[in-house]
């Protein structure tokens, strides 16, 4: 059993009681909702005549279904229009703060909460979305829930949960040029597997993590769930505090010093006990690309697609399924794989620093003929800041489309989607079969800079050759 970790301390501070089942009733400090997983929860509240217990601790936005090219209302898709209307109605009726499109604060839920200082160290955060793990970057316990649990949080601001074990993952040393947080997390998942984290919270630490910006830490924690871990976190430090200082919902005035002291006290103690510790060397991590149908099927960009005999026996069946679905052959290099669509965005990699890194590659180059490339900023604020510093011009001059914020082609619930057997280079988080909107569409996951490199090359290339 872990002891004296941030996870233990935050868990204890939020424990309401131990339930007869032995589970913990845990207070949820921040509840985020969006249009896809909340309407049924509100319907259940109405059915049971229950109010929302802490309406001020829930924040809503619209991200999954929103079009990124034409957001005029009503939306062209009547189902999407129905969903946003339902969210508008629910927020109005229950007094929930809602950042609608055009408010200047709309965006992907895991982008907007941190940028407004809603996400703070030491919180528990839940949202009906598995990438809620993103907020762990601040030293919060943050995890995805289903709709019945959304109902429970609305009605009680608590959840019935079993405590997780804690695995510390250390990345020692310094990442090389062209190697980003996305490569680190794809490397971790490749090594520990897509189910390696089941039952665990991941604590990321070590010099490579300490050197990361908050946005990089968010990318890292975001994909904890792809490794099977429901939540992942980084201990709060000076980088965290600097990011938060002055943000709208961060503590102000005399509260600030008190907050920093409290946050520092929550970080895992030097003698904390972990259920498991794993160490990786930053120098071993290359730009990483997935070749298969799970995020664990990744390789360094200069490696070859593994043959079944290179893999543990338990992974061979899935590898065979992946070769067939992806139409890639074992032993082939991943470099040179032609791509049709290039997508930069998502809660994993739709923040300002992601767009900056991609723009560095796009600058002065052109999207390859026949390739569709588009950039979807993670929020209205990211979009505005990127435009202010000239990133839009760089992308548009290079032939990328510049869109409005939303989840977009990460999961293709809006009009942005693959067609037929198209293959995408994508800065998103899941390469599952059919994930990007075509039942036979294919996805190669990589960092935003690698996606930009693929866009201007028309095929997968090592971004380090373009730096």
């Amino acid at each position, binding site marked *: 059993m872990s002891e004296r970790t941030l996870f233990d301390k935050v868990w204890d501070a939020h424990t309401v009681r131990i339930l007869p089942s032995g589970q913990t009733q845990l207070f949820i400090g921040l509840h985020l909702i969006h249009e896809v997983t909340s309407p049924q929860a509100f319907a259940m509240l109405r059915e049971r005549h229950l109010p929302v217990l802490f309406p001020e601790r829930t924040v809503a936005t619209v991200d999954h279904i929103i079009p990124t090219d034409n957001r005029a209302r009503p939306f062209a898709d009547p189902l999407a229009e129905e969903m946003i209307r339902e969210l508008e109605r629910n927020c109005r009726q229950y007094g929930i703060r809602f950042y609608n499109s055009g408010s200047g604060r709309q965006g992907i839920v895991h982008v907007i909460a941190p940028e407004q200082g809603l996400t703070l160290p030491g919180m528990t955060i839940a949202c009906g979305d598995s990438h809620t793990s993103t907020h762990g970057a601040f030293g919060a316990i943050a995890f995805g829930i289903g*709709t019945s*649990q959304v109902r429970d949080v609305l009605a009680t601001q608590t959840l019935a949960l079993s405590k997780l074990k804690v695995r510390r993952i250390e990345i020692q040393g310094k990442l090389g040029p062209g190697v980003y947080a996305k490569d680190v997390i794809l490397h971790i998942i490749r090594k520990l597997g897509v189910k390696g984290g089941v039952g665990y919270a991941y604590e990321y630490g070590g010099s490579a993590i300490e050197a990361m910006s908050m946005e990089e830490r968010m990318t890292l924690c975001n994909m904890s769930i792809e490794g099977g871990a429901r939540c992942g976190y980084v201990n709060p430090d000076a980088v965290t505090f600097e990011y938060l200082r002055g943000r709208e919902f961060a*503590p102000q005035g005399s509260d600030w010093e008190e907050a920093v002291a409290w946050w520092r006290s929550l970080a895992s103690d030097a003698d904390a006990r972990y259920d498991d510790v794993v160490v990786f060397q930053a120098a071993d991590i290359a730009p990483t690309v997935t070749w298969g149908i799970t995020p664990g099927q990744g390789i360094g960009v200069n490696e070859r697609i593994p043959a079944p005999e290179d893999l543990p026996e338990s992974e061979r069946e*899935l590898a065979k399924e992946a070769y067939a679905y992806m139409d890639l052959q074992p032993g082939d290099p991943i470099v040179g794989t032609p791509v049709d669509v290039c997508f930069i965005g998502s809660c994993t990699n739709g923040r300002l620093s992601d767009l900056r890194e991609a723009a560095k590659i796009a600058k002065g180059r052109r999207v390859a003929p026949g390739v569709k490339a588009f950039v979807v900023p993670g929020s209205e604020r990211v979009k505005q800041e990127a435009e202010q510093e000239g990133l839009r011009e760089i992308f548009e001059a290079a032939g990328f489309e510049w869109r409005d914020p939303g989840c977009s082609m990460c999961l293709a619930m809006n009009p942005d989607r693959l067609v037929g057997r198209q293959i995408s280079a994508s800065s998103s988080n899941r390469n599952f079969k059919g994930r990007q909107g075509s*039942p036979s569409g294919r996805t190669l996951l990589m960092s935003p800079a690698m996606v930009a490199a693929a866009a201007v090359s028309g095929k997968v290339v090592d971004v380090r050759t373009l730096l």
Partner: protein
Amino acid sequence: MPSEVLTITGRGIPLLGNDIDTDRIIPARFLKCVTFDGLGQHVFADDRAQDPGQHPFDQPQYQGSQILVVNANFGCGSSREHAPQALAKWGIRALIGESFAEIFFGNCLALGIPCVTAPPAVIQALQKAVAEDPQLQLTLDLPNKQVRWGENTAAVEIPQGAWQMLVQGTWDATGQLLAAKAQIQQVAASLPYVRWQQAR
């Protein structure tokens, strides 16, 4: 409303493969809805369309089956409760597998659907037995943590907390959680950030 989940008896349906994610169980385009009604017909929509008539959920011998037998890391990926809802509306009442992704497991629990685990050898034997005789009756006996079929009995596992919630009928947690309202208010008052963020 909540009731004890004790013994589930019914025919099985085997679904082979590891890491079957919730996008495959219910593709995202079917999430454009404000109720869960009607999801049952779309369960595994893309997988079924790929191989018309060959998917277990389409095969006539498995129609009406209630116990889904799966391999490792079933339900990984997206947190969408639409996945267990679609399975439940198709007719699934219990899952037996090598392992389950955590959010999926919790979503099933919140609907009173047990996900129990057994070692790979047991799962494979069970999948084979069901494939050979789709009429075979399986019994998931939760109080005794057993699955029984034909002459066979095997132990199954389920975390203690989830097990208690199912057998005691407290898997729909809202009422129980709300009973501690005073303690909830106390914890809220003890958290400094609740104060810092007040009235903003």
